[in-house]
């Protein structure tokens, strides 16, 4: 699918603040607006960008940003000073052969969920769709917004900035067929040259539909205030949907500050993940050398920074499967370094090496056992689709779940106990507590899932597997 981006205008609202920059080049939480548009449209294979004002300079800058990321072509609109419908019309030849394409303003940021909702089903031939937000209360600047009047049958009946009767706002993203060009040409021949004029032509013909994307994040960046609002909204999306209790109540508040500091720098989430390894090593060295308070604080700081890579990945659309894998593996390595250091530090409080070694072996073994239990439950699908009965623990878990928290011995709470215990110069007691908690928690979880029925899919899978095995055995026997 192709996407048409309208970037021909002067971006006058921002002129005072950012005279050298087109609105689409403005960085929002570390990514330019155009980069955010590309990231939000993963289905898009090619961008068609209409330029006009300072076209050469803008094209050069966009080329530097987009090269290697996505295929793109520029179309110049010599009449860029006219309304934005003329810019859309300028792309007519490039897109008239397409069944459907996305059309986006170049100064809007939105999340992929919005585009997913909009493109869930293609528009009917001759029809166009507009992503609309019915949550008027959440609109940042309703006076400046393009308002939309929806009927009850999935059609738009009117659109414009000045209309009095409206029940939604335009998000600046369309899913179009080439019919938009005919509508714009018709409007233009009557002297009405804005995109809204073309949309009104389609409205009159009953060919302008909508998709309700209320709840999905979007914001135009017309002026400094709306830019600040866009950043605020992106931060809300970047927060992990569910977290451990310690993370949600404390760690995230600090890690958000760190992420804010570095999101404008060319730092990728995987860099942060690897940095965490050094941070945990430094904390371990401090603990092992008997600097308990500094070591405990460093361990807690590592726990906080452990959330930064994920925040950065969500904020800058840089999440990857490899990154998730690397994060998991380094988490275990960091845990083991800290556990070993805490066990070794027992020798610094007047206990023999033999005791320290026994504690180290026991704590590491317990950690391995804990994660084996948790991960095997996760992979077996039981934790992914919990079907637990309404026992007390399930009710407690549900209470936390509804408050976007995960109850239990999560990584953040484990590290907090370790950090506090070490800072209080009680490494042996801390490791003993952690061993007991780990054993208690995985045992509880296993008892809990004893009552859990395997999912239907798992039963189907097993049936297929067993049939395959029987078939193999038969072939081998023959």
């Amino acid at each position, binding site marked *: 699918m192709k996407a048409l981006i309208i970037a021909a205008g002067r971006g006058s609202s921002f002129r005072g603040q950012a005279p050298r920059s087109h609105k689409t080049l403005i960085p929002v939480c570390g990514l330019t607006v155009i980069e955010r548009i590309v990231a939000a449209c993963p*289905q898009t294979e090619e961008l068609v960008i209409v330029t006009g004002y300072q076209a050469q300079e803008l094209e050069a800058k966009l080329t530097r940003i987009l090269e290697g990321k996505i295929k793109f072509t520029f179309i110049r609109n010599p009449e860029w000073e006219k309304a934005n419908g003329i810019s859309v019309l300028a792309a007519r030849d490039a897109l008239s052969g397409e069944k459907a394409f996305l059309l986006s303003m170049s100064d809007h940021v939105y999340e992929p969920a919005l585009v997913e909702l909009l493109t869930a089903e293609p528009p009917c031939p001759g029809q166009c769709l507009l992503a609309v937000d019915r949550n008027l209360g959440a609109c940042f600047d309703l006076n400046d917004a393009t308002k939309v009047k929806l009927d009850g049958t999935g059609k738009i009946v009117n659109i414009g900035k000045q209309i009095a009767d409206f029940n939604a706002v335009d998000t600046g993203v369309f899913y179009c067929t080439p019919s938009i060009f005919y509508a714009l040409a018709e409007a233009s021949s009557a002297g009405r040259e804005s995109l809204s004029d073309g949309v009104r032509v389609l409205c009159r013909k009953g060919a302008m539909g909508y998709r309700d994307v209320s709840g999905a994040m979007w914001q135009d960046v017309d002026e400094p205030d709306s830019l600040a609002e866009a950043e605020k909204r992106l931060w809300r999306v970047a927060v992990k949907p569910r977290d451990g209790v310690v993370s949600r109540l404390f760690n995230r508040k600090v890690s958000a500050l760190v992420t804010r500091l570095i999101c404008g720098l060319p730092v990728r989430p995987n860099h942060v993940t690897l940095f965490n390894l050094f941070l945990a090593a430094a904390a371990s060295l401090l603990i092992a050398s008997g600097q308990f308070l500094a070591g405990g604080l460093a361990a807690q700081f590592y726990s906080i920074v452990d959330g930064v890579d994920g925040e950065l990945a969500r904020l800058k659309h840089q999440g990857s499967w490899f990154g998730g894998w690397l994060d998991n593996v380094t988490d275990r390595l960091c845990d083991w370094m800290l556990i*070993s250091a805490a066990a070794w530090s027992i020798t610094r409080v007047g206990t023999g090496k033999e005791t320290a070694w026994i504690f180290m072996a026991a704590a590491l*073994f317990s950690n*391995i056992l804990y994660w084996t239990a948790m991960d095997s439950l996760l992979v077996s699908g039981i934790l992914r689709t919990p079907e637990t009965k309404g026992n007390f623990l399930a009710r407690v878990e549900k209470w936390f779940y509804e408050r976007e928290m995960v109850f239990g011995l999560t990584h953040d709470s484990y590290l907090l106990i370790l950090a506090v215990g070490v800072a209080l110069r009680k490494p042996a007691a801390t490791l003993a507590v952690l061993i007991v908690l780990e054993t208690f928690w995985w045992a509880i979880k296993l008892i809990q899932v004893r009552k859990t029925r395997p999912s239907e899919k798992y039963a189907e899978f*097993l049936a297929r597997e067993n049939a395959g095995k029987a078939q193999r055995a038969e072939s081998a026997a023959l």
Partner: protein
Amino acid sequence: MPERLKGQSRPLFEIIRLLDLKSAASVIPAGLALLLSLVAPAALCLYILGRLEAEPAIAFFLLGWLFISGSEFPAQLSNGSGRPSMSFIVLRSLDAGLVIALGLFLYLERGLPETVLAWAVAASLTLYLGYYSGISLLKAVPGKIRLAMPEAMVAADHLFLSRGTVWGGEREIVLFLSAAGVVIGRPEWGFAASVTAGNLNWIIKALNFWRRTKKDER
């Protein structure tokens, strides 16, 4: 499904391919597996009867355990029981526990230097890391892929549960080399070799995996 998402799902299909290969390669004839598995109880009996020294008894026990646990027996335990996790917890904890216990025995009972125990702990962690780096691939599946192709996801999850490893070889390397070290009377060499070979095994296989799939992963 969007074209780009198809590209991003490549690691999932690569995992399924790897696990399928494992299934075809890991079948030991049942009779041979049973025979080799008897090494463990036999070594234990001979040690109790005083016919075998502790070190070779431990080594044979480790090898016997490797054959028992490498057969299809643990997978059969889980199939149909509705609790697929249990056999894995037993298997992994016994793997790690046996190696750590061996290190503790050599350090506390045999009076070998503490470096032997340190190597044993490292060998145990290596064994687990090989397994964990495999299961992490499934833990890290992006949400959009998980939602877009639930059938493939469930297949990958449960293929993993019935195979127990993505990379393969981590248990064999660590348990065999640790046992070999004990047999030749240089347990620290055995542990050190298992740490080196075990880590190289999963790191090289993981690098190859990501090299094969990375170009489509964003």
